[in-house]
């Protein structure tokens, strides 16, 4: 069989979001009739690639060619014959199942099919996919996540695509359902449809993919064919070509008293309970794929999310404090730093000093009046410690780079002298020198006898810094990688739900 002409060609694709490089040199070639896996860890640029291929966002640089053209809008992508199941399950809640199945199928003024025809075509397809009966006239609002996922998949199939893109389409499906989906797309591939698949379940990919393109930090780092697609090969490429990112065991780590105990903590309905204790001087890492509960766990420690069951207990001075609210957490000495600065950190229209002082005002006052001098002195101390390079404290916070903004926010937390610091992906969108500063700071804080819980989407960061790493899947602990075993490969294997033994060869 001669090599078929490529259907999807991507060459040296680049895309920046502000300071963050989502894609920097991504290439991919897929042909008709193949199942092509796109593999990479969190934030490796998979979803950005999918959005560019679907015409949702425009690339900064590079070549995109799908069926001979570059899609510039979702409408055009659809006309070209591209159907995409996005990671977010995109449904219109108030509309019926049937309307959602054929969303975007009709023209502006005229339907391509009557409702009767739609029901006759869409109903059986959806039922065969779901293996269950569905009321097509019911509003989506009533349906569980898995049903919504099937509806979105059925919508893509109903458009009779020539290129089908599935971005984590199995995330909300159980294993049997996933297998059914992969059987379906195997048949579609046999009919000559080009299928691009992103999945966090490596087993699915090794079993079904004809070709795999591996992304790392927004660049293509390798392409595997057929039987060469194995779990180990994929993990090796994902984690940087080698499995050498090992933790250097720091002999100086002195473990002190236990500071915080998660006692059968359940962060979501049906999630397995989490038991873990963090001691003074220890950095405990949390690793998980997106949607598996890592940010929720960190936020639960800071009293910010409602937990389902169990408790977060602060241990100290012989007494135990149960955290029920943010106020409890703050009083018990828990500091929370978020990487999502827009939503959980910054007051973008206030100055650097005001942003810094936000958590201090309660303490820095006399007769109910804020003492600006005291806040300034606090700021000066933290600015020196964190080497914040700010023109003047009165300048707007937005005049700082992402890294310096993050330093201000960490300074805000440290000014309250916490003993437990919970960090929720703190280095997101932060430049490399600042990251190094932050790493040094975290080590210093641990050495001072604080307990640190760190969630990061960068596994190397975790492996480098942490004394042990708890890997979450579906909201519960899948495995805890201890200090002596700490490699990025083990953590990554855990995140993808593979037993550590399989991943170990380093």
């Amino acid at each position, binding site marked *: 069989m001669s090599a078929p002409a490529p259907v999807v060609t991507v060459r040296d694709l680049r895309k920046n979001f502000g300071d963050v490089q989502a894609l920097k040199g991504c290439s991919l070639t897929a042909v008709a009739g193949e199942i092509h896996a796109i593999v990479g860890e969190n934030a490796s640029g998979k979803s950005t690639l999918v959005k560019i291929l679907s015409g949702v966002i425009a690339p900064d640089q590079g070549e995109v060619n799908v069926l001979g053209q570059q899609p510039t809008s979702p409408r055009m992508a659809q006309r070209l014959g591209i159907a*995409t199941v996005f990671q977010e399950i995109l449904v219109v809640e108030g509309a019926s199942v049937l309307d959602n199945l054929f*969303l975007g199928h009709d023209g502006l003024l005229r339907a391509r099919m009557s409702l009767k025809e739609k029901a006759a075509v869409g109903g059986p397809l959806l039922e065969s996919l779901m293996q269950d009966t*569905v009321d097509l006239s019911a*509003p989506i609002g009533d349906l569980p996540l898995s049903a919504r996922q099937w509806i979105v998949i059925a919508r893509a199939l109903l458009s009779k695509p020539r290129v089908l893109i599935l971005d984590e389409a199995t995330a909300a499906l159980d294993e049997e359902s996933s297998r059914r989906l992969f059987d379906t797309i195997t048949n579609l591939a046999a009919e000559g449809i080009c299928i691009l698949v992103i999945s966090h379940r490596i087993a699915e990919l090794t079993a079904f993919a004809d070709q795999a393109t591996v992304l790392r930090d927004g660049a293509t780092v390798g392409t595997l064919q057929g039987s060469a697609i194995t779990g180990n090969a994929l993990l090796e490429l994902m984690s940087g070509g080698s499995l050498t990112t090992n933790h250097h065991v720091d002999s100086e780590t002195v473990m002190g008293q236990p500071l915080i105990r998660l006692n059968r903590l359940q962060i979501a309905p049906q*999630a397995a309970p989490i038991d873990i204790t963090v001691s003074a001087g220890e950095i405990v890492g949390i690793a998980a794929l997106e949607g598996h509960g890592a940010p929720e766990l960190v936020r639960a420690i800071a009293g910010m999310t409602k937990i389902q069951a169990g408790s977060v207990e602060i241990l100290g001075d012989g007494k135990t404090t149960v955290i029920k609210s943010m106020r409890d957490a703050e009083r018990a000495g828990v500091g929370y730093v978020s990487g999502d600065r827009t939503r959980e950190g910054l007051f973008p229209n206030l100055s650097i000093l005001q942003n810094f002082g936000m958590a201090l005002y309660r303490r820095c006052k006399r007769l109910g009046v804020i003492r600006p001098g005291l806040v300034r002195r606090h700021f000066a101390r933290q600015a020196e410690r964190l080497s914040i390079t700010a023109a003047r404290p009165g300048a707007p916070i937005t005049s700082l780079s992402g890294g310096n903004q993050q330093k201000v926010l960490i300074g805000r937390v440290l000014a309250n002298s916490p003993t437990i610091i919970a960090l929720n992906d703190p280095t997101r969108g932060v430049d490399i020198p600042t990251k190094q500063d932050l790493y040094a700071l975290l080590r210093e804080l641990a050495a001072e006898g604080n307990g640190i819980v760190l969630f990061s989407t960068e596994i190397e960061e975790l492996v480098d810094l942490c004394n042990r790493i708890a890997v979450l899947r579906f909201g519960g602990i899948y495995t805890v990688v201890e200090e002596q075993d700490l490699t990025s490969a083990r953590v990554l294997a855990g995140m993808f739900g593979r037993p550590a033994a399989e991943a170990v060869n380093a």
Partner: protein
Amino acid sequence: MATVRAPSSWVRRTGWEYLPRVREAAVDVATPALLCVLLLIILGFRFPQLYSSNGLAGAITASAPLILSVLAMTSIAISSPGGIDLSIGPFVAFVNVGIVHWLVPHGLGNPLYVFAYAIGVGIAFQMIQGLLIGLLRLQPVIVTLSGYLVFSGLNLVVLPNPEGTIPHWLNDWGAATSVNTPELYLLIGCFVLWGFFARTTFARNIRLVGGNDKTAWVSGLNPVLVRLGAHIVAGVFVGLAGITLTALLQSADPTQGAAQTLMAVTALVVGGVSLSGGRGRALGAVLGAIAIFLIGYVIGTLNLGTSESFVSGLIYGAVLIIALFIGSITGSALGVRKRAAISTEVSQ
């Protein structure tokens, strides 16, 4: 996770299922319908003249501008979250002023010109608002508030005092001597027209875009065009409202707008049209308008004298809050729930 079944299903899939739709409609429409019945009973005691031929005719003539304004706003509200048209009152008054001040003196008072003018101006202005909101992504509240202020002023510039003569044929419209008025047929016509419109693909697109414009866009719909279309539909009803206002006033009144806007928004909400987009039906909106109109009648029978305007404001406000409260209860009963953030629904 063996079975997946929507709790609200009464019948199995057959292609056209009416029962769930009927039930859904009943939920949406229940509040304004009950309110109307209640008010009609009260008026039976306090204002029995309403049930005479003259009384009903007068009520139809007097309520037509509000009903048509609310229909216009329904289209806009369904098409987007926060979709609202505050300009509607002053703009309807502008149509009225234009008919009396510009068309009649130039001998353009025949029905053809009047309808063409009213609907044309309505569509043109709504297109401007629709483009500002859709293309420039300006907040509907701000855009239409500007429209409200502009037309409140413009009406007074064009016509400083209520005055002028209306086209002869509109005299009959306003006569209100028998239930058999042109307004009744116009309203029935509009309602039937809406019934057809609501079943078109375009109306479905309006609901989908209003329900979730990001999803609609990613699926290939054009939210800007769809919203523009919703505004054009509104323009038709706004124009017709201007004609019925002219018939009601038998003159031109540049100051009629302000109160109308607030009444129309109140009626919209009482009628179960969601201000967060995607949900609402004309039947509810019309019943809401009738209810608001009847409340005015009831207040009128209280003989409050000078304090009437305060009391009516108070009552409209209370009705609005109660309607919102009931709406939020029935809304949650319909199962508009938030999704879990973590994918633990998977039973592994």
